């Protein structure tokens, strides 16, 4: 079983590029006047960009990318439905054997940390 830690800085760069590109596309999209719609779209872009930056090599990112392909809502599981267990928190967690779940969790956490750092940087950089 692969317990390779992700290369944090390469994930950060790949995520940063994809997310900024997604935000640019969003800023040009019509119908973004609605504040809540903008928020949901941004949130979705963040999640998708992270999964895309990781690619298909991990089960959790594959699970996120599969949900997009099926056009199922990405939102609504983790924030509106507070989950107490790991399987509910890690994307694709329900279908994994326990050993994989633990490995995927460690990778997922590192990626979330990278995502938070990049988004914080974007915030500071884009302030007028």
């Amino acid at each position, binding site marked *: 079983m692969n317990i390779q830690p992700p290369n944090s800085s390469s994930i950060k760069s790949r995520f940063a590029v994809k997310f900024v590109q997604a935000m640019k596309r969003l800023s040009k999209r019509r119908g973004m006047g609605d504040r809540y719609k903008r928020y949901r779209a941004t949130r979705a872009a963040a999640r998708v960009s992270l999964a895309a930056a990781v690619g298909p090599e991990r089960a959790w990112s594959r699970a996120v990318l599969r949900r997009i392909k099926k056009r199922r809502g990405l939102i609504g599981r983790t924030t509106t439905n507070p989950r107490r267990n790991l399987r509910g928190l890690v994307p694709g967690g329900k279908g994994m054997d*326990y050993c994989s779940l633990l490995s995927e969790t460690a990778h997922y956490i590192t990626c979330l940390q990278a995502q*938070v750092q990049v988004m914080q940087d974007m915030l500071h950089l884009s302030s007028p």
Partner: protein
Amino acid sequence: MSSRRGSASKLTEDEVNDLIFKLQASLPHESNSTSNKKRSASKILERTCIYIKKLQKEVDDLSDVLSKRLASGDINAADAELIATLLQL
């Protein structure tokens, strides 16, 4: 927390606990004096869930603030410089 084990691989309890302790390395270190004490597996799992929820909420909150920048056009204005700076990570 589900205690289901994979049917394909018969993991011993030691192997599972070993993986859980490795997970602990991903969590933020606690600064209190009990950090040297070996934590129980269930405690680590609990802390892991709490930490993941915290990170996911941070992403949501950051998305909220960044989405406001969409409207004001700030994202577009600085984007080339933004990407260049971010890629120096």
